[in-house]
C-alpha cells in the first residue's frame, strides 16, 4: 500500500493524550447523601455480570483509537496496489448528437434519454476523480466544443456536464475522438472517456486508448432523410419537393407523411417501407407567395428518434428577377423580349449609370454593346460586346453565316433551334476559359463562364444585323438564360442541415438578429458580404429579423436529414452490443473516502454505546 500523504501520520501523536485520558481515573462527581445503604444495594445489583463488561473501559479506548486511526489514515490518503498515483488528464467526451435524444429503453415508459444517462455516468467518473487528476469536458455533435478546460476542480466539471444540452445535430464521432487524441496532456497520462450510444461506439476506431461508456439499445426508427425543393415552371409559383423516408427497423413499416404548406395540408404520401430500406417521393405543389412547407408523420410503432419525424422548408416568395438592360439606344426589342418573361422586372440604364452595379440592386445585368472596364461581380449577359474584357477578346468581324451548337447539352440551348438562322454580322469571340456555346464554322460566337458567386454569358452576334431577334428561338434562348442565371439568385435547393452555419444572402448584413424555432437568439455574424447564423441546434424554422423593429427579413429552415443519425437500429446490432465497452471505467471510491465513512459510522456507534453505558 502506498501513502500519498505519509506525513499526516504525525497526527497519530494524538493517541497519547487519548490514552492518557483513559489511564486517568474518572473523577466521580462529589455528591452528599444521608446514607449509603441504598447506594450499596444498587452498587451490588449493578455489578458487571458479563465477563466482557470487565473490559468496557478498554473497549471504549479502543473505539476511540480506531476512530482516530481511521481519520488519520484517511488524511494520509492510502492507495492499494491496484491503484495508481500517476497524474492523469481525463477527457470526458460527451456525445450530444441527435441520436442521444433517443430513450435508453424504448420499451420502458418514462425512460430517460441516452444523453441524460451518459452525463450521469460522466458525473460519476468526475466524482471519483483523484485530486491530483485533471479533467476537461468536451461535448460533441458534428463539431467538438470544449465546455470546460483542464481543471482539477470536480465542481467545474460537474457544472460543465450539467450545461450540456441535447441537440438535433448529426454526430461526427471520428472528428471528436481525433481532437481528444490530439490534446497534449504534458506529463500526465491521457484518459479519454467516450460517452455515446452503441452505434456511436461502433463507429469509432478503437486503438485501445478509449474508455467507452454507452447508453441505450438498438431501437427501430422511421426518419425523413431528404427534404428539398426546386421551383418548376416559368412562373416559379410551383415547387417540386423531394421527400425520402428511411425505415431503420428489422420489420416492414408503413407511414403516411403529411405535407403542409403554410399550415394548410396539401398532400399526403403513403409509404410502405421494407426493413432497412428508404423510399423517395417527389410531389409538386403551388406556392405562389412562398411560405413554410412541413413534412411530418406519426409512427405507428415504436420510434426512437423524434427529430427526424418532421422536416421543414422555408420557400421564399417568387420575387421578380431584377434585370437591368444597359445600352446606348432604347433597346426596345430587348426590353420587350425580357419583359415578356414571367416574374421579371426590367430597368433600362444608360452606360454611364452602369458603374458599380451590385447584387443588391439587380439580379442580372444585360449589357448591349457596352462593356464596362471591370466586369461587375454580378450575373451578366453581354450581347454584341464592343470591347475586349478579362473573359474574352474580340476577333475579326464575320458576315453571313450559320450557327451551330458547340455544347448541345447545355441548358442554355434547350429547345433552341439554330436551323436556317442567318447571322448577318458577328465578331469572333475568343473566350478565356469558360465553355463555348455557339460557333459559326469553327469560330466561337457565344460562351459562358462560372465565376465566384455569379455567371457570365457573352454572345458576339450583332443582334441588330441578324434575323435572330425575329426568330422564335431568341425568346427561348433568353428564357433559358434567365433560368440559368436564376439558379444562383433564387433560394437554395433545400434547407440547412442542423449543426451548420446558415450562410444567408440578405439585402443587408448588419442590425440583424436570428431566432431559433423556440424563439431563442442564435449568434449572427457578417462574413464576406453575407450573413452567417448558427450553428443551428434544432430542427425547425428560423427567422432573421431586424434587431430594432423585429420585422422578419428572411426565414430559413434546419433539418436533421442525416441517414447515419437516423440509423438507431444498425443491421449489425448484435455485433454492437458485443463491442460496447472496450475498456472498463474504474469503479469505486478512493480509500480515504471509505475510511472517512467508517470514521463517521464509528463516531455514531461509539456515541450510542457510550451513552447507553455499554462502554465507558
Amino acid at each position, binding site marked *: 500500500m502506498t501513502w500519498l500523504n505519509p506525513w499526516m501520520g504525525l497526527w497519530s501523536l494524538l493517541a497519547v493524550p487519548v490514552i492518557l*485520558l483513559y489511564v486517568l481515573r474518572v473523577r466521580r462527581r462529589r455528591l452528599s447523601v444521608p446514607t449509603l445503604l441504598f447506594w450499596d444495594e444498587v452498587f451490588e445489583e449493578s455489578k458487571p455480570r458479563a465477563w466482557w463488561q470487565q473490559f468496557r473501559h478498554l473497549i471504549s479506548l479502543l473505539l476511540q483509537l480506531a476512530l482516530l486511526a481511521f481519520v488519520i489514515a484517511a488524511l494520509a490518503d492510502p492507495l492499494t496496489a491496484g491503484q495508481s498515483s500517476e497524474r492523469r488528464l481525463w477527457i470526458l467526451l460527451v456525445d450530444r448528437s441527435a441520436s442521444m435524444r433517443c430513450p435508453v429503453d424504448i420499451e420502458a415508459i418514462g425512460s430517460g434519454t441516452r444523453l441524460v444517462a451518459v452525463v450521469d455516468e460522466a458525473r460519476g467518473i468526475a466524482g471519483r476523480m483523484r485530486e491530483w487528476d485533471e479533467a476537461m469536458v468536451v461535448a460533441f455533435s458534428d463539431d467538438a*466544443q470544449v465546455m470546460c478546460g483542464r481543471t482539477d476542480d470536480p465542481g467545474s466539471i460537474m457544472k460543465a456536464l450539467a450545461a450540456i444540452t441535447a441537440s438535433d445535430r448529426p454526430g461526427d464521432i471520428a472528428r471528436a475522438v481525433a481532437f481528444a487524441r490530439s490534446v*497534449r496532456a504534458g506529463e500526465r497520462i491521457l484518459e479519454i472517456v467516450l460517452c455515446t450510444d452503441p452505434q456511436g461506439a461502433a463507429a469509432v476506431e478503437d486503438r485501445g486508448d478509449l474508455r467507452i461508456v454507452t447508453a441505450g439499445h438498438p431501437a427501430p426508427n422511421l426518419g425523413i432523410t431528404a427534404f428539398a425543393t426546386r421551383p418548376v415552371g416559368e412562373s416559379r409559383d410551383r415547387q417540386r419537393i423531394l421527400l425520402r423516408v428511411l425505415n431503420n427497423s428489422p420489420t416492414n413499416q408503413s407511414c403516411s407523411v403529411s405535407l403542409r404548406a403554410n399550415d394548410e395540408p396539401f398532400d399526403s404520401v403513403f409509404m410502405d417501407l421494407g426493413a432497412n430500406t428508404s423510399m423517395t417521393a417527389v410531389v409538386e405543389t403551388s406556392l405562389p407567395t412562398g411560405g413554410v412547407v412541413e413534412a411530418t408523420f406519426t409512427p405507428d410503432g415504436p420510434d426512437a428518434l423524434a427529430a427526424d419525424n418532421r422536416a421543414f422548408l422555408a420557400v421564399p416568395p417568387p420575387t421578380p428577377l431584377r434585370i437591368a438592360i444597359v445600352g446606348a439606344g432604347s433597346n426596345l426589342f430587348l426590353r420587350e423580349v425580357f419583359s415578356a418573361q414571367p416574374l421579371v422586372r426590367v430597368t433600362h440604364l444608360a452606360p454611364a449609370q452602369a458603374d458599380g452595379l451590385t447584387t443588391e440592386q439587380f439580379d442580372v445585368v444585360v449589357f448591349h454593346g457596352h462593356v464596362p472596364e471591370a466586369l461587375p461581380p454580378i450575373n451578366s449577359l453581354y450581347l454584341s460586346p464592343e470591347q475586349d474584357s478579362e473573359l474574352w477578346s474580340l476577333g475579326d468581324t464575320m458576315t453571313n453565316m450559320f450557327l451551330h451548337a458547340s455544347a448541345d447539352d447545355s441548358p442554355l440551348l434547350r429547345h433552341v433551334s439554330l436551323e436556317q438562322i442567318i447571322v448577318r454580322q458577328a465578331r469572333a469571340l475568343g473566350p478565356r476559359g469558360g465553355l463555348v456555346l455557339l460557333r459559326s464554322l469553327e469560330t466561337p460566337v457565344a460562351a459562358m463562364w462560372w465565376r465566384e458567386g455569379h455567371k457570365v454569358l457573352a454572345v458576339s452576334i450583332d443582334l441588330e444585323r441578324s434575323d435572330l431577334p425575329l426568330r422564335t428561338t431568341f425568346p427561348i434562348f433568353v428564357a433559358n438564360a434567365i433560368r440559368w442565371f436564376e439558379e444562383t439568385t433564387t433560394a437554395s435547393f433545400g434547407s440547412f442541415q442542423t449543426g451548420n452555419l446558415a450562410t444567408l444572402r440578405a439585402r443587408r448584413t448588419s442590425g440583424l438578429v436570428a431566432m431559433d424555432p423556440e424563439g431563442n437568439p442564435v449568434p449572427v455574424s*457578417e462574413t464576406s458580404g453575407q450573413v452567417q447564423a448558427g450553428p443551428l441546434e434544432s430542427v425547425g424554422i428560423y427567422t432573421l429579423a431586424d434587431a430594432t423593429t423585429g420585422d422578419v427579413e428572411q426565414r430559413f429552415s434546419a433539418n436533421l436529414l442525416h441517414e447515419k443519425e437516423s440509423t438507431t437500429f444498425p443491421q449489425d446490432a448484435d455485433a454492437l452490443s458485443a463491442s460496447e465497452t472496450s475498456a472498463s471505467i474504474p469503479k469505486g471510491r478512493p480509500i480515504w473516502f471509505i475510511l472517512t*465513512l467508517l470514521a463517521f459510522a464509528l463516531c455514531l456507534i461509539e456515541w450510542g454505546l457510550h451513552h447507553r453505558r455499554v462502554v465507558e
Partner: protein
Amino acid sequence: MNFDVTRPELLVLLAGIPVVWVILRHSLVDMKPRQRACSLVVRCLILLFLVLALAGLSVGRPSNRQQVIALVDASASIREVSMAVALEGIEKMRSSKRKEDRLDVIYFAEQTTPLIPVEEDGAWTNGLPETWPDRGTDLTLAMQQALAQLDPSYGGRILVFTDGIVTGKDPASQFVGVSQAGKRADVVPVSSGDQPEVQVVGVNAPAKVHVGEPFPLHVTVQSREETEASVAVFVNGVRSHEEKVTLNIGENHLRFRQVPGDERVLRFSVQIHAEADQFVDNNTGYALVRTGGKPKVLLIEARPQDGKHLRWALQKEDIEMEIRSVRGIPRSVADLQNFDLMLFSDVPATDLTVEQMEMVRAYVRDLGGGFVMLGGENSFGLGGYYKTVIEEILPVRTDFERERETPSLGMVLVIDKSGSMGGQKIELAKEAAKAAAELLDARDQLGVLAFDGQSRWVSEIHNAADRDYIIERISSLQAGGGTDMGPALSAAFSALEMTVAKLKHVIVLTDGHSTPANFYDLVTAMRSSGITISSVGVGSGADQELLERIASWGEGRYYFTSDPLSIPQIFAKETMTASKSAIKESPFIALPLVAHQVLQGINFEDSPFLLGFVITKPKPTSELILVSETGEPLLALWRYGLGKVGAFTSDAKNRWAAEWLEWPGFSRFWAQLVRETMRTTAPGRMQVEVQPEGDHATAYVELPKDAIQAGGSSPDEAVVMRIIGPDLEPEEHALEQIAPGRYGASFPTRDFGDYHVQVSRSVGGQALNQAETGYSKGYPEELRLKPPDHAAMRGWSAAATGLYDRNPADVFLTDRLEGYRVTRIWPLLLQLALLLIPIDIALRRIEFPRLG
C-alpha cells in the same frame, strides 16, 4: 466566497446529528448539563466535518488572475510575418502581465504545438518543431486546443494572430463557443507581408473542346512586385510553349493559344519562374480539357506494322485507331482516358508493370473503358497472364486442360537462393514456381532445384499431378549463401536425362554472378539431350551476358527484369511456352454460337479459315459468341465493372487471320466488336460538376429532365461515382439525391494530381446514363496567397465578445476577466475533526468545574 459540494447526495448523512442528540436525550451517563451540552456540540462538529469532507466541500472565490493564450498562425503562407508580429505582441504582453497572471502560446498550422508557457528564458520563441506541417491552417483545431488549455480558475482569453485565411473547417462556431464558456477571444490581424511572390492562381480552359479547335488557355498570375518571369506550358507532360513575360503588381492575365490534337484528355500544366519569389510550390497550375470527336481506339501490337490491317478495317467504319508498340503502353490514367477501347495483340505480361496492369483494370472497371485481347504467341496463357489482374478482367481463363495428344513436358526450375535473393525476390520466385506447378498438366513432371554455394533439390522431379506436394516443398525455400549455378545445372541435367518426357526444359533464375564454370559445354550437352534452357535475370546485379548466352546455347528464351514483381509472369509465360500446348495452329472455321449484335449482318458460313488460335477456357458468366470447330472459345465477351471486355483468341493480322483480311466481313466484324466493347455514353447526358473545397471536393450531378420521375425515383435506382485519383486506387461513392433531379457526394482530395470522375446511373442494374469529368488538384490551398479576410476576423471576434485588432500591450491591463478559484478542503475538515476527538474524550473523562 462560495461553498460548493461535489457529492451533495452525501449531505443526507447530516441526519446523524439529530440521532446524536436523541441518543444523548436517553443517555445513562451522568454528566453535568453544561458539560453534556459541550460534549454534544463537539461530537456534532466532528460528525459535521466528516460529512462535509465526504460530500466534497470546496471553497470558491472570484479570481482576478488572467490567463492569456496567444494563438499564432504559423502556416506557410504567413509564418514569418505572423511570427514577427506575434513575438512582438507577446513580448509586450509579457512585460505588462502581473505576477499571478499566466501567458502561454500555441502555434498552429495544420496541427498545433503543445501549450508553451511564456517565460523569461525565451524558450517559447523557438516553439516550432523542426518538421512542422505548415501546408494548411486549421483554426478550428487551434481554438479547440486553446479552449482545452484555459484554466477555469483564471480569467481566460485567447488572442489570435492570423490573416483570417483558413483551409480547414470554418472556425466560427468555435468562437461562439468561447463566449458561451465565459471566455473571450480577440483577433490581431496579420498581413501576409510584402516579400516578392509570384503565384499561378488560375489556369482556365474550356471544359470541352473539339479536335482541332483553337482555344485560349487563360492563366492568371499574381505578383507582389513588377518583375520578369518565364512561363512554360506543358500539354500531357510535353513542353508546348515557353516565353518571357513582364509581370505587373497584382493580377496578370496571360493567354496562350492552344490547338488540341486528337487526344481525348489534355492535361495542361503551366509553370512560372521568377528570380525573386517567396514560394516556388505555388508556381504551377493545372487544367484538364476534354475533347470531343470520333471514337478512338488504341492497339498495342508487338510489331506495330502488323496492326495496319485492323486500322484500315476500322477506318472504313469511321473508327480512329492509334497503334503503339509495347513501349507505348500508357503510363497514366489520363493517357489511357484518351481512348474508348484498348486492344492488346501479342503483348506479353512480362512487358507490363504491375501498376500498368492495375491501371488497365481501373480503366475498364471504374472508368468504363473497353478492353480486348487478341491471340498470338504472347497472348493469354502464353503471354504469362496467369493469375494477373489482366486475367481477372478477361472473360476467359488462361489455364486449361490440355489435349491428350499434346507432348508431355519435364521441367526443372533452377532457382538462385543466395543471400541477395532474400526478402521479396525469393517470395516472388516461390510464388512463380507454385504458379508453374499449377499450370502444368497431370502428365507433366516438375522439379525445383535451389542453389547457392551448393545445389539442393527443393522438390525432386515429380509428376505434376502431385502438385500439392510440390507446392508444399516450394514453400520451404529460404534464401542464404553464395551463387554457384554450374552444379545446379548439372544436377538438373542429370535428373532430366532420367525423366521420360517428350519435351524437357529448364528455367534458371538468378540475380547475381555465378562462380565460373564451363557453362558452354554443359548447356550444349543438355541441348544435345533434347533439353532446352531459358534464363531469367533479376536486377542489375545479374550476369546478363552469361544468362543471355545460356538461353542462346540452350535454344530457350532470355528474360531480364529489374522488377521482381514480374517474375511470376515470366515463369507462367515460360511454362506455357515450353509445354507448347496453348497454341493450336491448324485451319478452322469460326462457328457462331449465339445471335449477337457483334455478328449482325455477317455470314459466317462464307467466312474463310482462320489458321490458329490460343487455347483458353471460358469463365462461367462470360458470353461465348464464336467458337472453334472443336468448341474452344474464339470470341468471348463480358461486362467487367463499368466497361466491357472481349477475348478474341485468334489474331487480326496475316499470321492466323491471313485469309480473313481479304474477307468482306472482316471490317464489319471488327467494327462491330469494337463498337460493342468500347466506352459508350448513353443518350440523355447527365451534367457533372466538381467543386473543390480544401481537402475534399463535391461532385454534383444533374439528371436529364426526362429522368426525373414525378412520383419519386425507383427504389432500384443507383447513381454511383467512381473516382480514380493520383494513387490509382479506385473509390466508389453512392451519390445521394439532394433535390429533385440533383445528386451530390463528397470525396477526399488529399493528394495532388488528377482526379477522373465517372458517374453512372442505373435502374435495376441496367446502366441508363453515364457522364465523366475531371479535376486537377494543384498546390496546397495554403500556398494560394490571398489578402487578409478582415470581414471574417471581425465576425469571429464579435462572436467571441472580443475585440478586433486588439493591441496586445493592453490585454493584461484593461478589460480583465474574472476567474473562479476553487479549493478543496476535505483534508482541512478531517484535521479539524481530529483535533476535536481528544477534546470530545476529555469532556467525558474529566469533570470541568466551570461547566457545572
